[in-house]
């Protein structure tokens, strides 16, 4: 079997997928990043290699997500692309004709507007992370319910309570207040879902024309309570695609397929990188008042990449600077 590898390293989850040449998802792995992107990617690669049949050939590798630059250097990626492009590409493949993508991940949320198969507009949360996966995680932990059951419980609500959604801090104090007043857990959770959807539509979706088909993806799409709240607020059906939680990785693999079609050869280092010893570190350069924080990645003791310096004196020192795009 031949195919393409896609890796999406996000704040909360790290996802790996393997697509066959026809663009069908053959394997998908969803892992928690837990603040250790390198170890998690290595673990994922090992697991993926184990699941794939022997003699499988990786014809190209693409990476995306907030950890994409680091991972790109690690695995030898053919494309290093932002999540917005990756999500749009994946959605177009899995849900043909999609016009609106609602995506909520661990730390950011975005809306992507497509018309005739082309991204025409997008927005992303800027200063506020209220309403993203991390906040839901945190609230689930506080209420001592597994995050996987959050949505199911919310669906049992009879009359969702009103919770302030603009700010995570306000939302939390509102929730605590309502809980101490004796409101039921399902009603509080459903209320929270509605508040987050309200915040999302007012903040991220502000001024955008949301047309069907609407796709809801990203880790938070696992939460059926959120999907239902979206349908209620938009008065439109909302599709959660089969691979909603690994869409970024699917997109990265598709982009890798495009890139390799252009270049002809892949730079993928092979699954053996799972066993390499990577070390990262950072230091503050004292060469000038900018005091840049320089990050350094070493593989088996030799530095393979550096970034973070404004003048380029450190990054250019490691051979050719990886062009970030």
């Amino acid at each position, binding site marked *: 079997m031949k195919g393409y590898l896609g890796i999406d390293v996000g704040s909360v989850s790290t996802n790996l997928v393997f697509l066959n040449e026809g663009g069908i998802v053959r394997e998908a792995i969803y892992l928690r990043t837990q603040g250790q992107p390198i170890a998690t990617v290595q673990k994922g690669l090992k697991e993926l290699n184990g699941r794939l049949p022997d003699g499988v050939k990786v014809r190209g590798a693409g990476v995306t997500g907030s950890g994409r630059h680091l991972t790109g250097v690690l695995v030898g990626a053919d494309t290093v692309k932002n*999540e917005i492009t990756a999500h749009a590409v994946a959605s177009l493949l899995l849900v043909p004709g999609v016009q609106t993508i609602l995506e909520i991940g661990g730390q950011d949320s975005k809306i992507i507007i497509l018309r005739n198969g082309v991204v*025409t507009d*997008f*927005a992303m949360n800027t*200063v506020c992370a209220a309403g993203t996966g991390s906040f839901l995680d945190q609230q689930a932990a506080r209420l001592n319910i597994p995050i996987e059951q959050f949505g199911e419980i919310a669906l049992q609500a009879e009359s969702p309570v009103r919770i302030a959604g603009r700010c995570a801090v306000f939302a939390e104090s509102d929730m605590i207040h309502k809980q101490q007043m004796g409101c039921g857990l399902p009603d509080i959770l459903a209320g929270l879902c509605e508040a987050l959807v309200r915040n999302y539509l007012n903040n991220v979706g502000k001024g955008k024309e949301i047309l069907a088909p609407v796709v809801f993806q990203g880790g938070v799409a696992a939460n059926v309570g959120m999907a239902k709240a979206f349908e209620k607020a938009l008065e439109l059906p909302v599709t959660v695609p089969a691979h909603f939680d690994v869409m970024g990785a699917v997109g990265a693999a598709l982009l890798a397929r495009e890139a390799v079609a252009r270049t002809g050869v892949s730079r993928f280092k092979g699954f053996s990188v799972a066993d390499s010893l990577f070390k990262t570190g950072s230091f503050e350069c004292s060469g000038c008042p900018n005091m840049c924080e320089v990050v350094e990645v070493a593989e088996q003791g030799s530095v393979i990449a550096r970034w973070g310096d404004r003048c*380029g004196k450190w990054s250019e020192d490691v051979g050719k600077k990886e062009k*970030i*795009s």
Partner: protein
Amino acid sequence: MRATFPHMGNLYIPLRAMLQYLDVDVVVPPPSSKRTLNLGVKHGPEFACMPLKLNLGNFIEAREMGADTIIMAGGCGPCRFGYYAQIEHAILKDIGCDMQLIVLEPPEKNISELIIKIKKITGRRSWWQVIQAIRFGYQKALAVDELERKVFQVRPREARAGASERAFSEALKLIDNAASPGEMAEARKKAGAIMAGVACKPSGPLVRIAVIGEIYTLLEPFANNRLERHLGLLGAEVDRSLYLSEWVNDHLLFGLVKGLRSSKETCASASPYLCHFVGGHGQETVGSAVNYARAGYDGIIQVYPFTCMPEIVAQSILPGVGSDYDIPILTLIMDEHTGEAGLQTRLEAFIDLLARRKETREVICK
């Protein structure tokens, strides 16, 4: 008197020239850095916008270098910036940095108000000399702007990574070092030659992006996470809705110099979307968006510091401009966060989107 002033991009170059021409002892604070921000955040009120915190940090760092007098711009109107000089002065006093404060405010009626304030700084220098000093500073502002426009062109086309940046800082230094008006022509020529000497790779038409928004975050690279540089390196040609010389002309020289883009014209373009002054540069932001859309730019990016009221007003109006002129507009809000991953992601995606649109549009045109 050892005078200092807050940083705002390359403002230090014309300001230092102007003051040194008048034999004022000038202390230029170190460029805004994480330390500056940390000092400002520590002593400034949490709810103030980032420019206040950076100003404050600049003053504390200048004080460490021996400055005892602050020269600062003021303002009037709904933006709280007008009050910042006083607030900052009070905070400095509280933390034991007793410094004298001179606020240069946009003249309410005519330019003489400003000249009187400047006389306060310059003592017994003749008015003629003061006017010459302003001219000298203004010349430097023009030269700096010329270089900035050039670097916007060169950055996306540079053949060697980092070459344009090195040339730019070298050229800026030449302008900064010109000690008298007589040396300016030569410095300008040399600086221009340095910029022209950057090797460029051949390229087709690039994506053109206009950066608009609040003045401080527009002009200070530390405050906007070097937005223009990121855009350039991602392959976009940039223009900015505001340059130093334009601002100086509009606000300090009362529009004396003709032939520059003026804020009055920009505001006129804001109609019918926003027909009133809303403080700061809110109306200019809307007007610039209209102007750039008409000029055929591919996309627009609005930047402003978190909680900036005039720009929030503008932001809520911009989607209308965007849909009327069919131009994508991205808003970036700047605050203390220095992690660049998020910014990089948004810019990359925005440029992807613009490039795709440009391609499809060109296909249709053919």
